[in-house]
Structures are given as C-alpha cells and as structure tokens.
C-alpha cells in the first residue's frame, strides 16, 4: 500500500506492507533513526513521535494508519543549526545519561509544554509517566523540562511556545 506522510515538514511516501509498524517506516524506510525502539511492547516510550501534534508510541501503530498525517520526530527539533530549548535544557541539566530514552522524552515534553507552559513538578512527572528512563531516576529530566519551560516562556510571544 502507498503511504504518504509529512515528517518534520517534508512530504514523504513509500510502498509498504500493511503490517509495517510506524516506527519501522520512520527508521528503516526513511532512515530517521533518532526515534528509538526500546521495549517494542508499548511500555517504554523510546519510540514516541508526535502524530498531528500528539505524542504516541510509534511501535503500536501501523504505518498505513499514518497515511495523510503529520509526524514530528526528534530530528525536527533542531532548527537552522540551533538546538530546541528542550535539547539545550537536557544538556544543561544533565537530563540524560545513556540517551536511549531521550528522543521520546523530548517529543513527549515538547507536546506537553505547548499545552502547559507553566507546569508543576507533579504535572511534569505525570506527563512523562509513559516514558521510561533506567539511568537518571528522572530527577534531572524533570529539572530539564522545568528549565525548558522557563526558557520557552521567556522567548515565546504571548499565546504559546514554539
């Protein structure tokens, strides 16, 4: 079946088997390997991408279901050589160790901060509860998201974050 999707603003298409998972389309067909496969069982969130702006687990969706829809992956965060405030904040606050969960953490946090520009720590912990990190104990990830929220609030025009 032919699938057409917009990934990070670019229109892409491919002929795929219906059983191909979205994460495999992204990684193996389009070679965007920033999106990771962790547990492959809908638990860990390493494969998180934004589907029409909402974070979803791309290992638990078929590529054909994404036909005609817009996807954002971690590769789309950097703009013109400048890191996204979330990426800078994960560096500044040491929000990663091995980095395996990071693409998913970033994508979930991006969608979350767009809706909740001034979240409490509890809100952040709830928002990332579908993304597992086995290194950090989450403390620095939460700090990184708080850091990014402050940065985005400072730079965003009234009405929302990038």
């Amino acid at each position, binding site marked *: 079946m032919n699938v057409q999707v917009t990934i990070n603003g670019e229109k892409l298409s491919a002929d795929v088997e*219906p059983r191909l998972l979205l994460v495999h389309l992204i990684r193996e067909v389009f070679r965007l390997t920033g999106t990771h496969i962790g547990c492959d069982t809908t638990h860990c969130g390493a494969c998180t991408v934004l*589907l029409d702006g*909402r974070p979803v687990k791309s290992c638990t969706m078929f590529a054909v*279901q994404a036909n005609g829809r817009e996807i954002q992956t971690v590769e789309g965060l950097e703009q013109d050589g400048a890191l996204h405030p979330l990426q800078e904040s994960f560096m500044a606050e040491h929000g990663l160790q091995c980095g395996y969960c990071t693409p998913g953490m970033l994508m979930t946090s991006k969608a979350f901060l767009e809706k909740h520009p001034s979240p409490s720590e509890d809100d952040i912990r709830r928002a990332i509860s*579908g993304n597992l990190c086995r290194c950090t104990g989450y403390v620095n990830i939460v700090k990184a998201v708080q850091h990014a929220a402050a940065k985005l609030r400072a730079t965003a025009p009234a009405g929302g974050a990038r």
Partner: protein
Amino acid sequence: MIPAGFDYHAPTTIGEATALLSRLGDDAKVLSGGQSLIPLLKLRLASPRHLVDINRIPGLGYVKEADGALRIGALTREADLEESEAVRTRYPLLADAARTIADPLVRNLATVAGNLAHGDPANDHPAVMLALGAEIVATGPSGERRIPIVSFFRGPFETALKGDELLTEIRVPAPAPRSGGAYVKLERKVGDFATAAVAVQLTLAADGTCSTVGIGLTNVGLTPIKAEKAEAALRGKRLDEATIREAGQLAADAARPEADLRGSVEYKKDVVRVLTMRALRKAAERAGGDR
C-alpha cells in the same frame, strides 16, 4: 516484533465497515485505538486475516451531553475523555478512570469504546460502566440496538457484540443531584493492569441515605464484576462506617480473583475490600454527603 500479514481495510462510513465485517466474518478484527490489539498481533496471540480500521470514519470522536445522557463516540480517545469539561465537572468516576488507564501516550490513541469492546476484565472502563449503569449502542448491517451494560460482558474477551457489529456509542445516564463517584485502583506501576480496582457511583437522598449505588470490580474475575450484594446492603442506608465496612466485605466476597504475579487470592480480595471502602467514602464526599 512483526505481526502476521493481513489485508487492511479503511472504510469511511459505518455502513461500509459493518458490510465488510459481515462479509469477512471471523477472519476480521476491528482496529480502533489499537493499543490492546496491536500488542496482541505483535505477540502473535492473534493473527486475523483482515483488519478493518475504523479511524477513517468521520464524526465518531465526541463526548457530549444530550437527552439526559453523556454520549461517548466510538473513536473518543481516553485523552479526550480526560480533557472533557463535562467529564471533569460532572462525571468524577469517569475522570478518575481516564487518568489511570495505561499512560498518557497510550491514552492519546486508545479509545473508550475499544476498552469495552475488547472484553478484557483487566481493563478499567468495564467496571466503571457497570457502576454507572451505562448503555452500549451497537450498529450492525441491519441497524442499531441498545445493550444494557449488565448484559454486555459474556466471558473473558467475549462481549454481546456480534461479529458484524460496531460499538458506536456509549451512553452514561446523567447523574441526579447529590451524586458522586470514584475509581480507586491499585497498580504496581504506571501502565500496569490493576491488581484490583473498584468503581463506585452513588446518589444520596435528601435525608442523607444512599438512594442508588453501583459498584464495579476490575481484574478480579473472568469478567468485570458488579458487586450486587454490596450495593443492596447500601441502598436506603446512611453511609456510616459500619455500613461501609459491611459493603467492603460483601464486595470482597463477590471477587473471584486468580493468584498471579500481582498477588494471592486472599490478598486481592482484601484489596477489593479496602478499595471499596475508600471508593465509597470518596464518592459520598463528592456527592456532598456528610455521612
């Protein structure tokens, strides 16, 4: 993990979908949110030859109040339920359940209707809808029929839906004044199925006694369980501690759990007893009762 191959169908009307289901028979499965089905396909616990994806049918994702009921469409995501103003302000039992199902990412795709149609007694909405006394609207090739929730769950992963029917709407009766509900769930970690969970919906009469009450139990039997004896023990009574304790024990007696990694039979029954008491207290408080 790669699922077995299947033919993919993406109908754009309910009529087209039910005609497909009618033609394909037992070889077809309905794909809605996919958050239960796709993991099963990947583990090859199921290998249907056809998937009928209903996500391309417009107009099925809604939460609205009309004609004395909250109406939830076939494609309403758990996240939509969580964000619904009506749910947050008037259906606390649904609001409690919505934020405890799986995790926030899964809730962006998972549907309320799928949670019911899957027929898994470990899912949360079955017990919730039993407590609420909901009604299921099923649409097949020859039209629509309504199924009371008490006759919807037939066995593990088995519901009253026929092979060519879609669950098109869930109707939750609007709560009377002085109503309250609560869902209390014990889970080992975010995203796990409940060790046990209890759903309570009740209404208090002017004199403070309990006029109606529904109690549903999650993951302590082959189907979700309506704790009818506990309900009967509460009806017409003031919700004092002795009455709540008795109801907790009766709910525990109604549970039929199996021992597994989440605990022994005795432990799970005791969890039901404790959670029932907690849910009753919370529901009564939300109903505005002084107990």
